[in-house]
């Protein structure tokens, strides 16, 4: 068997070798180089219209196997043209062409392979468009029909075509286009063009590898000595559809991959359909920088000094022709970037960006740019930004961003100390530290964002703050942490409407100090919202809320204010038609303060506020509670006031009832709390003196005018009070303000010295004509206590100072005063009644003088059984109606009058045991006491008509009865 194969192999090999030898001999005999050279010349003559040179042509099989080929030693096409760098258009030192020998023998040359070695081409186009490469006869189709050979040779060329592949090995390819100012050159390159056709599909492929590529256009060097690789596979599904999947262009190590197809009904028509995707590998910016032409380098902002990796992805789909452009979706990726933007004092340690753009050059509005992600890190600060913008279009100047609508999202994590670079100035040094982390979103027109026209934007921010400290000059503030949210929404449709602005904060702890001031707020929570009202989009609603667990404020070491829970809610609805500020803003307020205390050097006692809670609206001002403890005193005010808003419009009456209650009020302590330092007293005295000397100025003081359309009642109830060293109980009464009048209605209290009841009225019919009236009653009052409590009583009844004991005191008086509260004497009207029992007449100088005239015994006991005196006030005179006192064995009647200037005219009669009278006249400095006839005997010890009431007694009775009618205390 082995031998069989050996014999068979030798036999077969011999046969093949014999055939090859026969074929070779035949070829060399028939297709001699001379004959082939002649044929090639004839072919060249048909194609080349300019001078050329073709070297020896030889037959080859080995170099073109399995095809038979021609090896041309030198092909030179020479077409000198003025200005061209070379007169040689094409120089091919060696050209090998493989073809189907059988068809070639019939005159149809189908080039299967074509190899051009060390080719050099010099393409030149002058400024007029004349070129040196139009040297070829018409050979636009692969099946070029040649002129019929007129020589006597039996072989003639019928057609020539390219079937498979062309390989170029170029030493130099150059293009000089003066018309378009183009200069391009490829040296040391290889080009391979191949094509195969299967099942009506034509596969073509172009491979180009040039070690040195240069390209210059309009004196701009776009490429200089670059390594270029191009792989262009093309699948011709039809003449109208070319798929170029797998295409790759590489300049140096930077590649561009292209996939997709290009189609056209006619590639000369200028109308192309395409669906092409482009993708680059990652390009390091610093490495490709030298590839960017200088003029384009200048477009790069000088302020930007950055490096990183760029990657571009793009997809173009649609039709390109003179009126339309394909839609382009592009994506630019920046990774691993670092650098700085010189206006900003930061070095960005890391930057990442992902930018996509949808470009529609056909429709203006559909162009958008989307920043999917921009991440920047500088030091410990990070900012992550995303957003989109539309309204980008292209005009004759290129791409224009026509104030696009932008939608921006940002995540930040920044060290607030970075802001110090901007905050600090020579005049006001500021320092801030801390950390802010959160998200920001903004939507609106780019112009509005860049110009901070916040009212035009829709924006939202959410920040988490950590250990924020702020220091500026003497101001220092610290926030331990917290969250701040802010939102800005523009109305969707109503352009005139109010934007919605919302702010919410939730902070852990805030402290601030400035000079000697210090403030501390524990866990402040707040919100503020401004938005349009539902009824009127141009009107705004404002809602504000604030609460804190506790607050503290100090001013030096002396003033200290602390609070517990504080809660404030405020709502407002703006109405431009409102008549005044209350109706323009329609405020609604709720306030709640708990457990507050205050220490201040102005007050030696602590001010404590257990709770203040009230609510306010234009309709209703309701004080739920307002407790204040000041030293030994405590107060609580509650109540309700209604119609405040309409009252300001003069449309309705202000109506309200307030209740003032106190379990204990120490008036003495409260009065002692009033500032009465020596300096104050001096200032007050100087002021008084100044007022006297400068009457016109003081006359400008305006009195309190009771407002009209007011119906307010203040009910007071004080359980215990201490005033003038007296313990008072059950102080109660009402202060009523009604229709331009103020009433103090039956204010009463009980003390050790007396039971009191006071009513008063104040009304202001005119500024210079003010009414003041009072009704004052004291029962079981100690006369000396009465005088100490109301020193003015000594002016009304001077002799009262001579008595001691219990009495009743009733006073009703009224007068008008001018705008400076000066009395109008002609309007003074009043009556007073003093009644007492078991009084003691004090032994003073005046009494001694009178007693001496009346011849009182020195043993006389000063006790008086009863006293009943009636006094009237009429204009400037005070009249004491005659009254009688019984003392021991003596009966004395007193009466008379005096004036406000303290000129006296009194008379006293001793009616028992004998009749002696005495006149007391003059003033306190010059009091004249002289004996006189008795004039009161008929009143108090009538001899005749014993039971007849005298006129004087009648008047006294009228006075006394009328005064007592209003006494409610018992």
């Amino acid at each position, binding site marked *: 068997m082995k031998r069989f194969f050996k014999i068979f192999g030798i036999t077969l090999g011999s046969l093949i070798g014999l055939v090859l030898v026969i074929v070779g001999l035949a070829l060399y005999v028939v297709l001699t180089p001379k004959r082939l050279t002649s044929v090639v010349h004839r072919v060249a003559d048909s194609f080349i219209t300019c001078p050329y040179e073709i070297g020896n042509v030889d037959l080859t099989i080995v170099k073109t196997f399995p095809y038979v080929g021609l090896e041309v030693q030198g092909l030179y096409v020479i077409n000198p043209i003025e200005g061209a760098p070379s007169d040689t258009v094409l120089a091919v030192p060696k050209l090998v062409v493989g073809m189907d020998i059988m068809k070639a023998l019939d005159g149809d040359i189908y080039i299967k392979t074509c190899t051009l070695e060390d080719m050099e081409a010099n393409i030149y186009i002058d400024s007029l468009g004349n070129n040196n490469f139009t040297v070829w006869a018409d050979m636009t189709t692969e099946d070029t029909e040649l002129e019929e050979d007129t020589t006597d040779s039996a072989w003639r060329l019928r057609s020539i075509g390219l079937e498979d592949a062309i390989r170029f090995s170029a030493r130099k390819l150059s293009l000089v286009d003066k018309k378009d100012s183009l200069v391009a050159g490829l040296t040391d390159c290889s080009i391979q063009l191949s094509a195969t056709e299967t099942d009506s599909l034509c596969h073509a492929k172009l491979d180009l590898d040039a070690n040195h590529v240069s390209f210059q256009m309009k004196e701009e060097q776009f490429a200089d000595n670059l390594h270029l690789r191009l792989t262009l596979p093309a699948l011709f599904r039809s003449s109208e559809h070319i798929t170029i999947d797998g295409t790759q262009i590489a300049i140096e190590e930077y590649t561009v991959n292209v996939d997709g197809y290009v189609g056209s009904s006619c590639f000369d028509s200028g109308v192309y359909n395409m669906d092409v995707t482009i993708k680059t590998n990652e390009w390091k910016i610093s490495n490709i920088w030298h590839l960017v032409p200088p003029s384009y380098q200048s477009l790069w902002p000088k302020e930007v000094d950055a490096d990183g990796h760029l990657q571009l992805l793009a997809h173009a789909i649609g039709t390109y022709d003179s009126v339309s452009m394909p839609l382009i979706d592009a994506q630019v990726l920046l990774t691993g970037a670092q650098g700085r933007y010189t206006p900003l004092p930061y070095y960005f340690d890391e930057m990442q960006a992902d930018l996509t753009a949808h470009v529609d050059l056909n429709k203006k509005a559909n162009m958008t740019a989307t920043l999917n992600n921009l991440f920047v890190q500088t030091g410990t600060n990070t900012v992550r930004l995303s957003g989109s913008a539309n309204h980008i279009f292209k005009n004759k100047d290129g791409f224009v961003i026509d104030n696009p609508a932008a939608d921006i999202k940002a995540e930040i994590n920044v060290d607030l100390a970075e802001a110090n670079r901007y905050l600090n100035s020579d005049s006001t040094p500021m320092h801030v530290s801390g950390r802010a982390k959160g998200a920001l979103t903004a939507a609106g027109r780019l112009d509005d964002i860049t110009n901070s026209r916040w009212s035009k934007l829709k924006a939202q921010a959410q920040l988490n703050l950590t250990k924020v400290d702020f220091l500026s000059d003497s101001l220092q503030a610290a926030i331990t942490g917290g969250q701040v949210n802010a939102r800005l929404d523009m109305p969707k449709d109503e352009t005139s409407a109010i934007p919605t602005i919302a702010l919410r904060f939730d902070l852990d702890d805030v402290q601030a100090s400035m000079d000697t001031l210090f403030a501390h707020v524990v866990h402040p929570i707040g919100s503020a919202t401004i938005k349009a009202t539902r009824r009127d989009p141009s009107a705004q609603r404002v809602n504000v809320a604030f609460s804190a667990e506790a607050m503290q404020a100090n001013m030096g070491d002396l003033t200290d204010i602390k609070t517990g829970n504080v809660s404030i809610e405020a709502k407002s609805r703006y109405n431009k038609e409102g008549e005044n500020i209350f109706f323009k803003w329609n405020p609604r307020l709720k306030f709640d303060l708990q457990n507050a205390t205050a220490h201040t050097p102005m007050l030696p006692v602590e001010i404590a506020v257990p709770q203040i809670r009230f609510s306010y609206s234009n309709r209703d001002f309701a004080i739920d509670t307002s407790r204040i403890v000041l030293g030994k005193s405590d107060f609580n005010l509650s109540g309700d006031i209604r119609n405040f808003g309409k009252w300001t419009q003069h449309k309705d009456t202000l109506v309200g009832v307030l209740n003032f209650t106190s379990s204990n009020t120490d008036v003495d302590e409260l009065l002692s709390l009033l500032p009465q330092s020596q300096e104050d007293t001096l200032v007050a005295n100087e002021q008084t003196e100044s007022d006297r000397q400068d009457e016109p100025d003081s006359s400008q003081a305006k009195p309190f005018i009771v407002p009209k359309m007011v119906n307010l009642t203040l009910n007071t109830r004080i359980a215990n009070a201490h005033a003038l060293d007296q313990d008072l109980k059950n102080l109660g009464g009402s202060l009523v303000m009604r229709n331009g009048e103020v009433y103090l209605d039956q204010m009463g209290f009980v003390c050790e010295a007396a039971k009191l009841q006071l009513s008063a009225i104040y009304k202001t019919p005119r500024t210079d004509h003010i009414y003041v009236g009072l009704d004052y009653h004291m029962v079981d009052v100690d006369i000396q206590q009465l005088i100490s409590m109301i020193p003015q009583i000594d002016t009304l009844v001077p002799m009262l100072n001579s008595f001691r004991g219990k009495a009743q005191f009733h006073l009703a008086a009224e007068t008008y005063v001018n705008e400076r509260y000066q009395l*109008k004497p002609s*309007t003074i009207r009043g009556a007073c009644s003093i009644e007492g029992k078991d009084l003691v007449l004090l032994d003073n100088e005046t009494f001694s003088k009178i007693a001496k005239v009346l011849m009182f015994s020195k043993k006389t006991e000063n006790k008086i059984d009863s006293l009943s005196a009636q006094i009237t006030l009429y204009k400037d005179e005070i009249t004491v109606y005659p009254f009688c006192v019984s003392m021991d064995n003596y009966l004395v009647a007193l009466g008379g009058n005096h004036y406000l200037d303290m000129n006296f005219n009194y008379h006293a009669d001793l009616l028992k045991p004998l009749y002696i009278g005495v006149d007391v006249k003059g003033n306190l400095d010059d009091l004249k006491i002289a004996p006189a006839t008795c004039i009161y005997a008929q009143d108090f010890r009538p001899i005749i008509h014993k039971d007849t009431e005298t006129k004087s007694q009648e008047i006294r009775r009228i006075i006394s009865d009328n005064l007592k009618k209003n006494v409610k205390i018992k």
Partner: protein
Amino acid sequence: MKKYIFCLLGLMLAFMTSCQLEGNKESYLYGKWENVNKPGDYKVYENSAVIPIHEEDSVFKTYKWGHEWDEAERTESQLVHQGNGWYMWKLQGNNLYEVSMTDRVWEGSLTPVTLTISTLTSDMFIFERHGRTYTFKKVMQ
């Protein structure tokens, strides 16, 4: 007996004469008077009887209304009707009793004033009070 009758008639005549004189003197008061020594200080005595509203005020049913004002401090129009500046007056002999009213304090609080007339003619009115003499002249009937 005849002596008693004449005496009685004489007393009756004297009483009637005194009543006639007092009635004439009161009519002199009616009108507007101005203080001679203090121009602008006016008093007006009206022939308008007080009509008590409350029973306890019936004591004043024999009084008539009057009012007074000092132009230096207020005008007549600024008076509150039957309030401060108004008074009830009654003439008894030489005593002119005036009970001054008040605007408000405290309904029923009255200020009695007694003037002692020394001269009262149709155009002159002189009275004394607490030793001081006041002279008024009539400026309007």
